[in-house]
């Protein structure tokens, strides 16, 4: 085998068939590549692999891929830049990544619209007797006052218009999230609702990352501050993170919320894994969750039925 004679030189060999194949008997990214083929080079950098390293620059010059090391590095720079750039674009274009941006933007728009609405209300209070509060009032004001009385009123109206537009965008983003999440994560979206599903994906950084989390982590996603306070030893462990917004947690009486959160997180984790690894919709999962929660709540009702914690129950009712 001619391959054997090159073993000491490259350290990396692939078995080859042809008599004249000794020019490409290594796994280097440039093996057999046309020096002008940037696209092919980027592809090699991204997809290739080798069992071990070798003196690639020397090898490339030997084989005539480059005239000298300077030219090799020039081509390597071009290839790695193109490969990394393509890789970044591909990963950032992935649907779950788009969803993450959308749900974060939705939260930003809602929060900012609310802040601006407060400013509008405060300002309007100094000018109109019937001034109200909230985003709804900002919308009213934006539509109503077509003919401002003076420059400062003109600014106030303009601010109300911006606020209304931002609130509209938040609504549009919510609609986009509700429409997109089921295609990205059908089971998770069905079980958690599209917005909460998108938040969970956002908090873990992607559907792939969420699918790899243990359910104990999913249970407290969004409660990181409380979790780390607990790990430092200065606080009790948090019972739930963002999954608190789910009816199955919030709607369960306080003394059973920990159990409900644990049960919900367990099923959400399974849903995320099915979505990531198979992508098939499995309605059975929803039914299993419904059943599990009914059990949790059933025991809760029995508990308060004995009259031992009736006051806790009524407190919980006031919360919601």
């Amino acid at each position, binding site marked *: 085998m001619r391959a054997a004679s090159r073993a000491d030189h490259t350290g*990396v060999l692939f078995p080859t068939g042809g008599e004249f194949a000794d020019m490409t008997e290594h*796994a*280097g*990214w440039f093996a057999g590549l046309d020096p002008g083929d940037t696209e092919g080079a980027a592809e*090699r*950098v*991204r997809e*290739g*692999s*080798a*069992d*071990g*390293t*070798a*003196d*690639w*620059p020397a090898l490339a010059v030997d084989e005539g891929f480059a005239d000298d090391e300077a030219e090799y*590095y*020039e081509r*390597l*720079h071009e290839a*790695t*830049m193109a*490969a*990394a*750039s393509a*890789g*970044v674009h591909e*990963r*950032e274009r992935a649907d779950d990544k788009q969803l993450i941006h959308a749900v974060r933007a939705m939260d930003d728009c809602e929060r900012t619209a609310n802040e601006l609405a407060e400013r509008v209300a405060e300002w309007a209070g100094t000018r109109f007797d019937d001034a109200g509060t909230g985003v709804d009032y900002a919308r009213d004001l934006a539509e109503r006052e077509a003919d401002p009385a003076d420059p400062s009123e003109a600014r106030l109206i303009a601010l109300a218009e911006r606020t209304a537009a931002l609130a509209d965008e938040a609504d549009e983003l919510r609609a986009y999230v509700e429409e997109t999440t089921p295609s990205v994560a059908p089971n998770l979206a069905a079980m958690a609702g599209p917005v909460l599903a998108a938040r969970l994906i956002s908090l873990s950084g992607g559907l792939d990352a969420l699918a790899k989390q243990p359910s104990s982590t999913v249970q407290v996603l969004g409660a990181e501050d409380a979790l*780390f306070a607990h*790990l430092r030893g200065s606080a009790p462990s948090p019972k739930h993170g963002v999954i608190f917004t789910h009816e199955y947690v919030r709607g369960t009486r306080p003394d059973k919320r920990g159990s409900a959160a644990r049960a919900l997180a367990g099923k959400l984790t399974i849903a995320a894994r099915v979505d990531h690894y198979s992508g098939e919709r499995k309605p059975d999962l929803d039914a299993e969750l419904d059943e599990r929660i009914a059990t949790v709540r059933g025991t809760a009702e029995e508990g308060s039925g004995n009259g031992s914690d009736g006051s806790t129950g009524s407190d919980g009712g006031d919360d919601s």
Partner: protein
Amino acid sequence: MTDLPAGVERRAFEGGERLATRGEPHYGEPTDGEYRAWNPDRSKLGAMLELGMDTGLVGGETVLYLGAASGTTASHVADFAGPTYGVEFAARPVRDLLDAAEPRDNLFPLLKDARKPETYAHVVEPVDAIVQDVATRGQAAVATANAEFLREDGRLLLAIKARSEDVTRDPADVFDDALAELESTYEVLERRRLAPHHDDHLGVVATPR
């Protein structure tokens, strides 16, 4: 105080004397002519140099940088070193790393997982130094897996982040375990906590066994 690598200088900036390299500014750092300040509070390798650790770097060497992130430190390394391979697995920071690599012909960005050296062994040549700053669990395992790239007399410049391994354990115990794991592959030449620049980080200089 040991010598700084050629290409790294102490220069007077507003607020005192600081490490600096010569190159295109990358992250809004203060500049003085062609020089740009290297902030040890934002860079583990910068802190190792600032604290006088003997990194063995002389300038011009071939470097494999694991955990290049957005290129804050990697850009300084590329300013004084030779061919610099920057490995980073997260897509978002690589967007910034690309900006750092654009004007630096010797900085090669690789969107790869440092835990899987076989996915970039077809690109990375044997190197004189490995700089490692990866914030994942199993930092010693990453250093071990990449040892094949390091020349016999090369240097591993490793920053171990205790909190990446286990937030609940005493950092000193985490460091002991990591060093013990390194032992089979590397001989540790120097170790030092990177405080006050970085809390709960250990700087390690090692060479292959």
